[in-house]
């Protein structure tokens, strides 16, 4: 079972995946200190599922590509391992099934997917709503404990914005 890191050991991962109609999925992971200072950033190249994959995976395609294929790869590649991961999409939560690190969705205006009581556990930290897979509901308490060092008025989702912008910049450069 995961435990809460403290003080300087706390390195948070902010993971997001963007989906583009013509280029598929692309993910980015920003590892920061508790104060938001960047330590490492990793992003993937776009993953474009073919027609057969789209048909045969059906509705599970998104969660598979985001949570397993992209997010897991990013976690493996990053040199500075985060002690907790915050994501902005419910589809990425599946990552938790493959790793030991606590993962939670930080609900923002841009969060995709609708949490439901059957699958997700919820916790409020300051003004932020956090969701985890029901099977890993203890992650929420661990993450909330780690986040105690962040001032209540801080925008917890801000690093996700940076991650998103960095992904778009990377795409622009690669185009």
């Amino acid at each position, binding site marked *: 079972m995961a435990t809460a890191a403290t003080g300087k050991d706390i390195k948070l991962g902010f993971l997001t995946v963007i989906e583009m109609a013509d280029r598929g999925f692309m993910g980015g992971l*920003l590892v*920061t*200190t508790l*104060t*938001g*200072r*960047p*330590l*490492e*950033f*990793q*992003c*993937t*190249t776009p*993953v474009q*599922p073919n027609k*057969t*994959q789209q048909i*045969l*995976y059906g509705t599970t395609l998104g969660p598979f*590509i985001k949570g397993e*294929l*992209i997010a897991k*790869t*990013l976690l493996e*590649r*990053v*040199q500075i391992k985060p002690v907790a991961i915050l994501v902005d999409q419910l589809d990425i939560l599946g990552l938790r099934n493959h790793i030991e690190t606590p993962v939670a969705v930080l609900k923002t205006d841009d969060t995709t997917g609708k949490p439901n009581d059957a699958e997700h556990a919820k916790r409020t930290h300051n003004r932020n709503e956090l969701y985890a897979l029901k099977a890993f509901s203890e992650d929420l308490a661990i993450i909330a404990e780690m986040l105690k060092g962040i*001032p209540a*008025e*801080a*925008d917890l989702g*801000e*690093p996700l914005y*940076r*991650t998103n*912008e*960095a992904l778009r*910049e*990377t795409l622009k*450069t690669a185009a």
Partner: protein
Amino acid sequence: MEEAQENADLTSQSINLGLNPQILVTGMNSAMARWSSVMLQDVPLLAKPGYVPSWKPMFGKVKTFGVNFPDSVEVLKPKVVEEKKAHEEPPKPKKVENEGEEAADKPKKPARIKPPADAITLEDRLFYMLQPPLNSWFSSQELVMPFEPFPYQYEGIAWLFSQKSAMLADGMGLGKTMQTITAIRLLLRAAQVRRILLVCPKPLIPNWQREFKFWAEEIPITTLEGDTARRNMLWSMDRAPVLLANYEVMVRDLGERPEEDLPKFDLVVLDEAQRIKNRDSRTSDAARSIPRKKSWALTGTPIENRPEEMASLFEFMGVVPERATPDLRQLKLLADVYVLRRTKDLVMKDMPPLLDREALLELSPAQKYAYETAEKHGTMQLDAMGEEITIQHVFELVMRLKQIANYDPVTGESVKLERLVADMEEIAASGEKAILFSQWTKTIDWLAERMPEQFGTLVYHGGVAHKDREPILKKFKEDPKSHLLLMSYGTGAVGLNLQFSHYVFLFDRWWNPAVEDQAINRAHRIGVKKQVICTKFICQGTVEERIDLVLKEKREMFNRVLGDGDDSSKSLSLNASEIFGLFDMKARHKEGVRKIQPKKEVA
């Protein structure tokens, strides 16, 4: 052979199927009317059915790209609250005075760091994009700011942080010092720089020391001073993050050094960078010769006289080739990328106003006599010189007349002094403070001797020893009995923060209104809490009135040509023609007279 063997094994056997076919004449087969006999027989399959998938759930290997950030530099912890209280009346209060409660509740727009235009690689661009917004950085416990910067200051800090070559040319009083110190602080934290050289005019050294202590107390500052051996030792100190030197020391110590012996820096900052406007000067040479990765120039007056002066600054910044002479269009393009300039009018809309007041005074009888006599003799002498007259001769006369307008050297009569004392009585009685500027240290000393004791008059000019200057400013700020500070334009007009004084007197006029503006802006700057009243003494019917008129006309003309926004990028100094024009001078020419004009234009 094998086939023959197989054929040999085949035997033929006749089987009676019980069919009795009849061929009718009609061609119909009678067998068609009878039910066929059907039998079942097992036929084994040729092979077992296999599962051959035509598709496998496989995705290619996902490739990744990464950016690593350098380790942050360990710094001292912020001081405890008790110690901070000592700073509650800071030398440069930046608290937002005019923000109401509504503004306080409103979430602030994040001040993000943008990649510079010359950042080419993706890694470089991501490095800047992934930095946290400055306001969240500052609000975190990691980086404590004594006061919340203004939004435009956030923008300036973020811009400086990302620039390799930068000219911060904000108008006076907008906080160039604070923005620079904070950007340096962030760069040190992000391990982007480790060794910085900051060069400024000598009188501003204590100011930089004080401001560093206030805005970035964790950064140790090493000032280049002492004898040559000590300075050499300091130049070679690798572990000092910020070295502070004055221009003279920089020229003396580095001007003659061979290239391989020059100390290397990650960042060189030139304060009052107009000092290197002349690219042939030793100061410019010395500044350009220092090996460095980043070059920043700070100036409130990027152009003092001619736009070409900027070329020298751009050369230091490394954005134009050596000896390049960019034309106006190219300068404009370079400025768009490498210069950040905001004026007070644009960013400080809520700042208390500056009230400009002209005190038109009548010379006292003794002054008037002395003035008229000097003018008469002076112009006669100049007239007599005819074609030999030079700008220097006229200049000397102007100076003499200006001095008499200040006070009559024989009788000591001074209408300006009388007016000053009258105004100061009111100011001192209300507990306020005032600063006074004059062109001459002699006038300042003369005034100081005649000021009533209750004004607590202090003197700050070039004749005051450097070690005594800081205590004077401290006393003026902190001593409630000290109401008047007499300063010279040369020493007091730049870099000082005196926004706690709400009255400014210009005892005599400077040649260039930009210098006067700099002087006035010692008081009328960020943090000023109430309106500032500036009184300009002008003696009627004297050369002062004529100088004022010419300067006003010049200002208006430049405003018409360049607009109101950028008021210091203009040539406002009086040129030779204008100085000659202060007097209606004529030379005898054959039988009549002709107007005297300078032989060549002097800017």
